[in-house]
């Protein structure tokens, strides 16, 4: 029997949302349509005829009630909600002539999305510095502490890089 579901693992960094959308669109063109997504990067696809789907990701942190209204609005506008990956929401729509292929139709709202991601990252960044900042600087007598220090430092570096990438994306959008 032919497989109807395919599971794939793929890692995307926080600043690669557009690359992720493109990848999902290419998968659909090959007949693999996203049916669910779960951390840290598991994508389940249902196998069917190839289709020209447009995939779009939004980032929202809101209350349950607000989310229902938000999803209703997307549904009314023809967007199918496929699933969530932490605060990332996955939507798709069949590409049709004359219809907008964007969930964000102006620069301001695109910037606002990246600012929401930045706020979240910034919060955790700050938290990490508060919790581990002292630890990185102090000498600890046990050798395994070095490994932890290196790990924390690495995470901090990735966060720093992510924040820079997102800030650059916002700057680039502002120039449009």
């Amino acid at each position: 029997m032919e497989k109807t579901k395919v599971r794939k693992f793929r890692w995307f960094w926080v600043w690669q949302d557009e690359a992720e959308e493109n990848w999902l669109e290419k998968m659909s063109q090959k007949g693999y349509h996203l049916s669910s997504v779960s951390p840290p990067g598991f994508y389940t696809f249902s196998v069917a005829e190839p289709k020209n789907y447009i995939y779009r990701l939004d980032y929202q942190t809101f209350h349950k009630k607000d989310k229902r209204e938000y999803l209703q609005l997307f549904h009314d506008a023809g967007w199918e909600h496929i699933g969530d990956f932490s605060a990332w929401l996955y939507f798709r729509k069949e590409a049709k002539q004359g219809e907008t292929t964007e969930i964000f139709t102006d620069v301001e709202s695109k910037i606002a999305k990246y600012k929401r991601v930045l706020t979240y990252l910034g919060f955790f960044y700050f938290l990490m510095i508060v919790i581990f900042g002292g630890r990185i600087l102090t000498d600890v007598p046990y050798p395994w502490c070095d490994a932890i220090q290196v790990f924390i430092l690495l995470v901090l570096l990735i966060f720093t890089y992510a924040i820079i990438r997102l800030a650059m994306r916002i700057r680039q959008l502002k120039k449009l």
Partner: protein
Amino acid sequence: MATGDDAKRYLPLTEATYYIMLSLIEPLHGYAVMQKVEQISQGTVKVGPGTLYGVFDTLEAAGLIVMVKEENRRKSYKLTPKGKKILLSQIKRLEIMTGKGLTVIDRL
């Protein structure tokens, strides 16, 4: 005057915000606003659901629109008096812009 300060804070409205506010002269829910914006802008402006949700959020928090009905997970909004004032200031700004534009249009 308070309204003058308000106007300065919110103006100029983005094109999407302007048309969304124009639509909300009567109570409408989200998708109806999207359709109306496309219609009254003669197809020049289309508002995606992500953009609309953000604008609703901002306008409601600023007290420029208010929720008047909630039905089947669809909220309907309409302009508040404050919203009307801001919209009016924007229309006047646009009038100056297009008025000036029209005086030179023949020379372009």
